């Protein structure tokens, strides 16, 4: 049912836009494209296939990625308040993107810098965790806080030295998150790390159930906890870093959508992870439509996810479906 919901929301998002067109002419343009005919209305065709289509694809992927990453971390760290940026992925990616903006590099470099710096931040956390012995989970969380702080300071330094007229607004805007500049060229490079990330995390979904009971118990149940942890962290980091690289920092999705989904289908990761992909995509598509249409200037989606997320979250918990105990 949720898959149908996703298809419906995609279709509606396709129809909505600043360049309004009735569904009939949209359908006509699609059939013309499918048949290889020239576009009936070139402006509409551009809006549909070069602007709306890639944007919808990217929003869907990012919504899926962030909610899957968040859900898997919540189970692995046995903590419902954990989000995908726990291990410093977003702090690192933000720093990378800001650095690229400061150096006046092109759009593709912003994405590459963000992606690499996000991976580097999490890598640093893993390295710290190897050096400091003790409780592995606690070490990771502390490492995430340390590295996150380090990269956030780096971002602040960049903001400090950035040109206040030109680069600082660009940096600030990027940090708030947006899908505004997404083009067809962004879609393909996103697919590879995302596909690897989804496969890594989704194949561990049964083991994530065991991990929710804690390290010792999972091991006593025959789970190779070290391997599961490494695979899930790698997968979630690929998902988070590539999301941030293309869309900037979008908070809230990775924290709230998994809870929403848990309220709908329960905590079993076998069902939770696939479902949270759908709910994450639907939620982000809806919010992105608001971001595009609510105001004559596009609103950064990072702001909207939280503004719309809070009442939505309260509504769901008021309904008191199956949530936390």
């Amino acid at each position, binding site marked *: 049912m949720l898959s149908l919901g996703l298809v419906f929301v995609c279709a509606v998002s396709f129809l909505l836009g600043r360049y309004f067109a009735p569904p009939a002419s949209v359908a006509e343009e699609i059939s013309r494209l499918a048949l290889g005919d020239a576009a009936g209305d070139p402006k509409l065709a551009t809006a549909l296939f070069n602007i709306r289509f890639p944007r919808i694809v990217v929003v869907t992927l990012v919504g899926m990625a962030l909610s899957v990453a968040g859900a898997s971390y*919540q*189970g692995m760290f*046995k*903590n*419902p308040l954990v989000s995908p940026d726990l291990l410093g992925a977003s702090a690192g990616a933000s720093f990378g993107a800001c650095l690229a903006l400061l150096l006046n590099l092109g759009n593709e470099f912003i994405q590459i810098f963000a992606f690499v710096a996000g991976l580097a931040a999490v890598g640093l956390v893993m390295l710290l965790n190897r050096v400091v*012995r003790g409780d592995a989970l606690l070490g990771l969380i502390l490492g995430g806080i340390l590295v996150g702080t380090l990269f956030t300071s780096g971002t602040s330094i960049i903001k400090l030295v950035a040109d206040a007229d030109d680069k600082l607004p660009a940096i600030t805007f990027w940090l708030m998150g947006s899908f505004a500049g997404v083009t067809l060229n962004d879609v393909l490079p996103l697919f590879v790390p995302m596909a690897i990330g989804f496969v890594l995390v989704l*194949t*561990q*979904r*049964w*083991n994530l*159930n*065991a991990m*929710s*009971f*804690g390290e*010792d*118990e999972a*091991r*006593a*149940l*025959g*789970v*190779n906890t070290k*391997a*599961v942890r490494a695979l899930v962290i790698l997968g979630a980091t690929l998902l988070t870093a590539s999301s941030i690289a293309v869309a900037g920092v979008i908070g809230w999705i990775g924290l709230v959508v998994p809870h929403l989904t*848990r309220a709908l289908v*329960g*905590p*079993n990761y*076998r069902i939770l992870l696939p479902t949270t992909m759908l709910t994450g995509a639907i939620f982000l598509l809806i919010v992105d439509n608001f971001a595009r249409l609510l105001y004559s200037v596009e609103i950064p989606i990072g702001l909207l996810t939280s503004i719309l997320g809070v009442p939505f979250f309260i509504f769901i918990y008021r309904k008191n479906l*199956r*949530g*936390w*105990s």
Partner: protein
Amino acid sequence: MNNPNGAARIHGEVLPNPEAAATNHEAAASGCRRVAAPPLLSVNNLRTGYHRTEVVKGISFTAERGDFVCVIGANGCGKTTALKGMLGILPLFGGSVDVGGREFLSAGGHTATAKEFARTFAYIPQIHGLPFPFLVSDVVLLGRTPHLRSSVSSPSDADKAAAYMALKTLGIESIAGSEYTALSGGQQQLVLIARALAQEPRILIMDEPTASLDFGNQQLVLDRMLDLGREGMAVIMVTHDPAHVLHCANKVIVMDGGSVLREGTPEETITAEILERIYGARAAVTTARLDDGSEVRTVVPLSRRHTGAPPS
């Protein structure tokens, strides 16, 4: 205690478990004729601890099918550490753990895979909080993890049937659809035992399973564990209650300061002298005569009132 039926039931459980004794006897007898079969579980001079601090300084014991081994000792004597060492959760500094004559664990690390381990040993932890409201059926199904085809597989219908059987064995199949987090402590502990049964292990290991349970639930859990011992599993239970040892065990390991102080039958090990030595507490180990004429051994804690010692 005034209820004769209740008394008879208690009496029945205090006696050493007859099937288990028979099994051991047969094993011993056949051992005389042929080569002695290696014990089901053999813990050999196990040394383990945290980081570089050795907490358990060499303990050894064996357990056969049907044995109910209780490990007793004061807080901090290394009981739980020893269990975690046996389960491979903590690294061994020395010694080994053998199952049926095959080495499973040594100071070099695991010599059996995590799956083999979990199909042989099931660990029943103390009840604990869980961050998410898993269904009882899902919790028990997790016990099937070591039987899954690969590390990326999910349980099959056969696994679901096995999990249901485990719930049924404990008589709690009616709560399969409940949320684990909404259950009472006693029920949660039974669910964790069911999860262990779903692993189809040969050895059950428990760490103070009755610690946070009320009187009735303690008895319920211990009775179920005794049943499982009779069905041919070896049960190893860490406890700090000498009364539970007298209630369940046929073999006792008394730990003190990280090593074995005494090993033997409950009668040999649960004595006033040993209890005073490990706990620094005065107690009388005595025999209570029940209304039906049968006798049970029990432990009575003594306060200053009884002993007439001056206040310290």
